[in-house]
């Protein structure tokens, strides 16, 4: 194995080791720890880019890189699989992480203990979930990312955070139980946990086993829908995201996408066995749930006064749009959905960061508990930072924030000129393309529904976001100017400029999404690559030197 | 490893007797736990299982495995020692806690003990 081969494991290993190393400092030496975090995050970004580049080069079989952990055959060991989709998600996560970390370094990382290790562990969970090719291992990484997300959601403590986290935890614990039930039923019927092997095993099941398998798959699907916060399973999300500290909420923007990613991945792997349909969702259900989610979130955006909640519901809109798009299916639609996924994730993240800056001048930092209590292991350590002011009041700051807000509003509602428009257009265009192909020059009820819901959700977003924006920027109360640090603006600028880049480079990006989506078709390249591992290099017994 | 059927009869009988004695004592102890009227009386019951009951079964196990594996098996002794030294911790604290709770509720069962009065009889159930 060359060192390049080991790159696949790096997105999991780097955060693991970084997190472990940070813990050796026991929460002291924050600068050093922050430095480790920054290095680790940048390293992950570099690895993600490298994997992405590698996934686009070579023959179709070469683009899917399979990493056999412990050198055991994929059939019964655990494999990591890095294809274009996984690399894309890794990159997205790393980019969000860079922005969130940049933002957090100005202030938020001091609002509680162990921000940095938790941050890295969240990335580890995310990266692992994107890479793993084993269903139970997926459960483990889900738990890693959930556990870290609990920690980060609670970062800074305070009543709203604890309450929202409590709901989040209970719902997700229940969902984890469903996950386990689903996975174990799948093992109990198909006898394997390897995703690729599953794709091959399903056709061999007898009808009764097949029925049980589908029950397991359906239960598992519900667990994913909870992660994706689909209606009616995602009511915990807006409160949680609104309560979480800004960089955390920004990083969380990708969490619902993990659910979506898995639905997409498993759907593609089982599609062939399911006769083109994902086995995880009975026909039409995913689409219906997506539509319901968009509709609900669109209405809820109108009904929310608080900007954090607004942003939370916009996460739901994006989640619902993706579910509906995946429910429609087809490579064209999938590629559009992927474009939308990237664009909406970056946008929502930027929006969460921005909201905090905008609101900063308005509310005292009462959400951060004044910390005066001494703690175990550390002597009477009064957190001096908690009192410290963040940043300086720049005169033109409201203008800068206003421009950023406008950009976010435009992106969220899918108005031109930014990538939100391109994404929305791409989805609608693919929808119509597909109808033109299948139905032949007309649009089915399903198509009209999606068209309508997407357009109307755009409209309600416009109304809701303008209302919030006007209240924040155009209503004169004698508010103090928010004190903002350059890095905080830098983080937002990073995310927004990525959106701009996405707009300008829409063609190449869409081309990439196309090849990604083609690679997902019926899961063939994926299954092929994993199975090929077992054939070409049987397990090599004996000790390593 | 000798299967059950091939054990010498005396061993089988001895092991069986020890097993029944031990489990019977445990059962008696648990029945006592159900039947005794006050907490202070109930405390005595489970000791049946954790002393002689336990020792019997441990002996059965030692005997059985020593014969079956044709070597001296003594590790069961450890369980006996561990249980014997840990049970007092539980019972001491539990009984002490009960005394405190009774005292807190105004009925100190040992309040009347003094150098002059060295025993207090508690014939009826204070907490029916």
């Amino acid at each position, binding site marked *: 194995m060359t060192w390049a081969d080991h790159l696949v494991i790096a997105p999991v290993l780097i955060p693991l080791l970084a997190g472990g190393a940070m813990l050796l400092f026991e929460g002291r030496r924050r600068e050093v720890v922050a430095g480790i975090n920054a290095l680790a995050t940048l390293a992950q970004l570099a690895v993600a880019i490298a994997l992405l580049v590698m996934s686009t080069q070579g023959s179709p079989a070469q683009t899917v890189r399979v990493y056999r952990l412990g050198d055991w055959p994929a059939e019964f060991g655990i494999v990591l699989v890095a294809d274009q989709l996984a690399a894309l998600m890794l990159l997205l996560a790393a980019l969000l992480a860079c922005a969130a970390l940049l933002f957090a370094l100005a202030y938020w990382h001091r609002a509680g203990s162990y921000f940095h290790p938790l941050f890295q562990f969240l990335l580890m969970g995310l990266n692992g979930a994107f890479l793993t090719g084993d269903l139970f291992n997926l459960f483990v990484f889900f738990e890693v990312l959930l556990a870290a997300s609990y920690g980060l959601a609670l970062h800074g403590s305070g009543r709203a955070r604890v309450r929202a986290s409590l709901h989040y935890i209970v719902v997700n614990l229940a969902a984890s139980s469903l996950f386990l039930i689903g996975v174990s039923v799948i093992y109990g019927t198909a006898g394997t946990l390897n995703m690729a092997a599953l794709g091959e095993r399903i056709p061999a099941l007898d009808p009764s086993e097949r029925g049980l398998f589908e029950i397991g798959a359906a239960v598992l699907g519900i667990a994913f829908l909870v992660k994706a916060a689909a209606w009616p399973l995602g009511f915990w999300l807006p409160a949680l995201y609104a309560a979480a500290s800004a960089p955390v909420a920004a990083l969380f923007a990708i969490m619902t996408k993990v659910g979506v990613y898995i639905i997409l991945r498993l759907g593609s792997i089982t599609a062939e066995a399911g006769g083109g349909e994902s086995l995880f969702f009975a026909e039409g259900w995913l689409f219906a749930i997506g539509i319901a989610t968009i509709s609900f979130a669109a209405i809820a955006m109108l009904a929310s006064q608080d900007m954090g909640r607004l942003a939370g519901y916009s996460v739901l809109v994006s989640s619902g749009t993706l579910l509906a798009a995946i429910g429609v299916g087809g490579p064209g639609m999938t590629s559009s959905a992927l474009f939308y996924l990237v664009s909406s994730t970056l946008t929502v993240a930027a929006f969460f960061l921005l909201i905090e800056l905008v609101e900063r001048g308005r509310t005292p930092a009462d959400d951060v508990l004044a910390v005066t209590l001494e703690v175990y292991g550390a002597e009477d350590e009064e957190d001096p930072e908690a009192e410290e002011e963040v940043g300086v009041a720049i005169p033109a700051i409201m203008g800068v924030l206003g421009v950023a807000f406008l950009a976010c509003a435009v992106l969220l509602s899918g108005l031109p000129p930014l990538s939100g428009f391109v994404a929305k257009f791409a989805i609608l265009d693919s929808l119509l393309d597909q109808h033109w192909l299948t139905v032949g020059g007309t649009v089915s009820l399903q198509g009209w529904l999606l068209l309508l819901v997407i357009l109307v959700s755009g409209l309600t977003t416009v109304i809701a976001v303008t209302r919030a924006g006007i209240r924040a920027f155009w209503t004169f109360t004698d508010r103090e100017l928010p004190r903002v640090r350059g890095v905080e603006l830098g983080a937002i600028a990073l995310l927004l400029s990525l959106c701009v880049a996405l707009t300008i480079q829409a063609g190449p990006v869409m081309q990439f999404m196309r090849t990604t989506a083609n690679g997902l078709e019926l899961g063939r390249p994926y299954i092929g690559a994993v199975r090929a591992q077992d054939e070409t290099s049987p397990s090599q017994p004996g000790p390593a030197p | 490893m000798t299967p059950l059927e091939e054990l010498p009869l005396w061993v089988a009988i001895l092991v069986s007797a020890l097993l029944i004695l031990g489990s019977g004592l445990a059962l008696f102890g648990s*029945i006592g736990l159900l*039947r005794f009227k006050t907490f202070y009386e109930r405390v005595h*019951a489970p000791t049946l299982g954790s*002393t002689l009951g336990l020792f019997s079964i441990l002996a059965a196990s030692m005997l059985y495995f020593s014969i079956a594996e044709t070597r001296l098996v003594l590790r069961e002794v450890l369980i006996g020692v561990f249980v014997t030294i840990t049970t007092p911790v539980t019972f001491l604290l539990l*009984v002490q806690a009960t005394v405190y709770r009774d005292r807190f509720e105004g009925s100190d069962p040992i309040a009347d003990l003094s150098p002059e009065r*060295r*025993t207090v009889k508690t014939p009826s159930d204070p907490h029916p």
Partner: protein
Amino acid sequence: MSRWLPYPLISVMLLITWLLLNQSLSLAHILLGGMLSVAGPWFLLRLDAPRLVIRRPLAILQLCAEVAVDIVRSNYRVALLTVRDKPGRTPGFVRIPLRLQSQYGIALLACIITATPGTSWVAYDPDRDILVIHVLDLIDDDDWGEIIKTRYERLLMEIFE
């Protein structure tokens, strides 16, 4: 000696424990068990455990024998009580002044009293050296105090003091 082996007796017991656990007398286990048995008591030292000294090891055997007999006897008696309660049985508390000072001795006494069905340890006041036990079937007032003192306390004092 005291620095490296602060509790030699305990070290020996630990080594025996290790060998029993592993059911082995191999050199590897003796070495490993020995290391653990030396290291374990260091923690006891840190935890301020009192030194364990045994004056009359042989008395232990005597104690064991007596306790074994008592346990069997009282098991039988209490087992009967659990099935068919004696009508006139009177449970009660007994106050016993102790002369025994060794902490290990008192702990062992607690083990014995607890292990004997029919008696249970209720309270011990280290300031006044007074022990209170509960007796399931209080036949005679002075009986229990004497039994404890003569049968156990004496032997325990011989062993530990």
